[in-house]
């Protein structure tokens, strides 16, 4: 991996991704390993995110490490006006690893530049969240038996959804075919489409969410259409129910189809889908634990997974 911090999925080569996923598989077989004995990880959550924090802290604990940190910046000196640089340098005195979530975009990259301690980006505003991408890839590989030559349909907010943009980058090494389904206002930005064009990746854009597209897919990646993203609320009212997945839409789908969602979901997946064996979003979150264990070992240069 380029550099010892994990800030963005762009820095992972195909080889890096495959190695991390392979190690995640080993942690799934046995998550309790004392690889971090005597090590301290700092979880700095300048913005609350219970799900991500618990997943990372469980990962450190299951590896035998100890955790320090905070889950809300209002209790730290950053609320007194301390710079991020000073906070990071202070924590670097204590910890062997920094796992940080920040509401400002680029915060993790900057942190990784000011300290020698490896930094894992656990989300920086709307920018990057590489551990989410890697757990998505792990879930895809695990459910499909492979990452190559898959048809992936992505539904919902494709304009602002950072998980979606990173998923495209992460999958770009594996010859995917994409279907992008979004309302006009939330279409996939040119930047991601240009990347697909440059790499010769097939994609098709749709505004209607049809069974026909579901039936061609191996992975259905659902995301939330958020009301606050719309400038025109009438448009929101018009489209909000179009992108809801209901169980009867899955009747003609492939046996290997799995439904992913970065969570939290609101109403974009109807609850009658939960009992369908193709629903995979809860297990997907569980995979986050193993993937994060693998990421922690990767940035700390731990290659022997005893």
């Amino acid at each position, binding site marked *: 991996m380029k550099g010892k911090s994990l800030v963005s999925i762009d820095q992972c080569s195909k080889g890096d991704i495959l190695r991390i996923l392979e190690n995640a598989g080993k942690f799934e077989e046995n998550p309790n390993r004392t690889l971090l004995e005597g090590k301290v990880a700092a979880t700095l959550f300048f913005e609350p995110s219970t799900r991500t924090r618990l997943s990372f802290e469980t990962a450190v604990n299951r590896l035998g490490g100890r955790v320090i940190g905070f889950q809300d910046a209002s209790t730290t000196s950053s609320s007194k006006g301390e710079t*991020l640089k000073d906070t990071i340098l202070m924590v670097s005195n204590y910890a062997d690893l920094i796992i940080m979530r920040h509401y400002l975009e*680029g*915060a993790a990259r*900057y942190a990784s530049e000011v300290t020698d301690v490896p930094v894992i980006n656990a989300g920086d505003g709307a920018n990057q969240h590489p551990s989410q991408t890697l757990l998505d890839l792990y879930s895809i590989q695990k459910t499909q038996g492979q990452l190559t030559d898959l048809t992936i349909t992505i539904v919902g907010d494709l304009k602002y959804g950072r998980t979606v943009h990173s998923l495209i980058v992460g999958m770009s090494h594996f010859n995917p075919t994409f279907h992008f389904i979004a309302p006009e206002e939330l279409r996939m930005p040119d930047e991601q489409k240009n990347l697909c064009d440059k790499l010769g990746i097939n994609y098709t854009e749709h505004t209607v969410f049809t069974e026909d597209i579901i039936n061609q897919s191996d992975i259905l990646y659902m995301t939330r259409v958020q009301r606050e993203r719309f400038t025109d609320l009438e448009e929101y009212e018009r489209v909000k129910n179009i992108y809801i997945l209901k169980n009867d839409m899955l009747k003609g789908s492939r046996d290997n189809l799995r439904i992913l969602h970065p969570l939290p979901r609101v109403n974009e997946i109807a609850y009658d889908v939960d009992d369908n064996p193709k629903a995979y979003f809860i297990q997907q979150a569980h995979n986050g634990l193993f993937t994060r264990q693998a990421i922690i070992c990767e940035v700390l240069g731990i290659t022997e997974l005893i």
Partner: protein
Amino acid sequence: MSDNKKRELQVAALENGTAIDHIPPEQLFKVAYLLQLEKLVDKTITIGNNFYSKKMGRKGVIKIANKFFGKDEISRIALVAPNVILNEIRDFEVVKKYPVTLPDELVALVKCNNPKCITNNEPMATRFTVLDKEKGTIKCRYCERKINKEDIIIK
């Protein structure tokens, strides 16, 4: 009067120094600002604007006696004036003539126009990667936002 003669009358010739030519008239003072000409207190500087230009109708010209720019020093002006021509003059002769192009990275020069970018909330230098030197598109190293030339805000 011949073209050559006209040109001579418009601006005094330089013995040694740099002539920056073909500056879009509306960008002339921005270019002067970016070059920090106000700091060159011991150099003779001639600034002229709205000269006739066959190529662009009107143009601005800056001549600085006994001053030669490093590449990094000069490349920043490509942000506002991409087709400017730099002439290095020694002993009244133009010894080097080249168009100014953007560098690969712009450091502490441009403000990120994403209010949620760390660079707008922390005392630190901005860094932008130049994606397309022709089109002038740049990308923030931190928040990764792409900025088109017309939206670039110079600090």
